[in-house]
C-alpha cells in the first residue's frame, strides 16, 4: 500500500478518534490537533492496529511523533 493510500485511510481513523475532519499530511502532529493528547495517541494507534490489522509494540507507540512516523510504522508492517 502506498504512503498516500495509507494517509487516505488514516483520515477516516483520525476523524473518528479526534472527532474532527482535517487535511492530513505527513507533518500533522499533536501540535496541530487540540485533542491529540497522550491518551488519545494510544487510542489512535489501537484503532490503526485494527484498521490495518497490524500490531505495534507498546513502547514503539510513544516514539511516533507525527503522522509521517505513523505512516512509516504501518508501511513497515504491511511489507
Amino acid at each position, binding site marked *: 500500500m502506498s504512503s498516500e493510500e495509507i494517509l487516505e485511510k488514516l483520515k477516516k481513523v483520525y476523524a473518528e478518534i479526534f472527532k474532527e475532519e482535517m487535511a492530513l499530511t505527513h507533518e500533522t502532529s499533536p*501540535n496541530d490537533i*487540540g*485533542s*491529540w*493528547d*497522550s*491518551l488519545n*495517541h*494510544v487510542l489512535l494507534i489501537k484503532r490503526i492496529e485494527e484498521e490495518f490489522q497490524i500490531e505495534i*509494540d*507498546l*513502547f514503539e*507507540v*510513544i*516514539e511516533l*511523533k507525527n503522522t509521517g512516523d505513523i505512516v512509516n510504522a504501518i508501511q513497515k508492517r504491511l511489507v
Partner: protein
Amino acid sequence: MDNIEKNLYDFYRVLAEVKNISLVKKEDFELIQAKNNLWPQLIFNLNQQKNQNEIIPEISRYLADYKLSPSIVAPDEYISKNHSELLKASSLIPVKVLMGMNTSKGSKENIKMPADCEICELKNKTQLSDFSMLIQREFFSSKKDFGEEILLELKDSEEVTMTGLYKDSTLVSSMLVFIKDNIAGLYFIGTKKENQKKGYASLLIRSGLNQLFKTGIKEVVLHANHNSFALYQKIGFEVQNKFIVYKKV
C-alpha cells in the same frame, strides 16, 4: 536516585502542599492527587528495590480498587520494554516519554534582549492567570485540567519562582523554577503557539540559567518531551535518563 529524578519528586511533594491537593504515601509508591479531576493526578517514586513483577500488578490493583486513573511516572531503567507483557496484563500502557536533562553551565552566548521584550518575575494575579492559561494550552490540550490556584499558592513558596518573557507587554513565554538542595528544576516551560520558534523560550531559559548559576546553583534540570528536546539540547542541556508515563486503561 539522581538529581533529575529527585527534583521532580520533590516538586510533586511541594505541589501537594497546595490546597485541594493531597499526597498519599504508600509503602511502594506515592500518589499526588488534586480534587475535581484537575492536574496533578500522579503516581511516582516507585520502590525500585521491589521486583517489577510485584509492583506493576500492585499499582494496577490499587487503581482499580480506588477507581483512580492517575498517570504513573517511572524511570525507564526500572520499567522498560522488558516488562511489556506484564504491563499489558495489568492494563498499564506507556503514553509519553520524558527525557531527564541537566546542565551545570550557563549560556556561552551573550544574551541580547530585543528592545520590545523584557523578562520579569510573575507575582500578581493577572500575571499568574496569563501563565496559567499558557500552561493549560501548552500542556493540557483542550480540557480544562490545570487549576490557576496552584500558581497563586506556589508564588508564596520560597522554593518556587515564576518568570515570564513579555513582548510588547504580552506574556509570550514563561517557566517555573523550583529550587531544592541547590538543584534548580525548570517546569512548565511554555511559549504561546503564535510566538513559538522565534527564540523566546531560549532567551528566557538562557537568561534564567545565568541568573541561577550566579546565585550558586550547581545544576539545573528539566524534563523534556519530543518537541522541546532539541531546543534544550541547543541551550546546553544533556540527556541523562528517560522517564515513561503510563496510564491504566
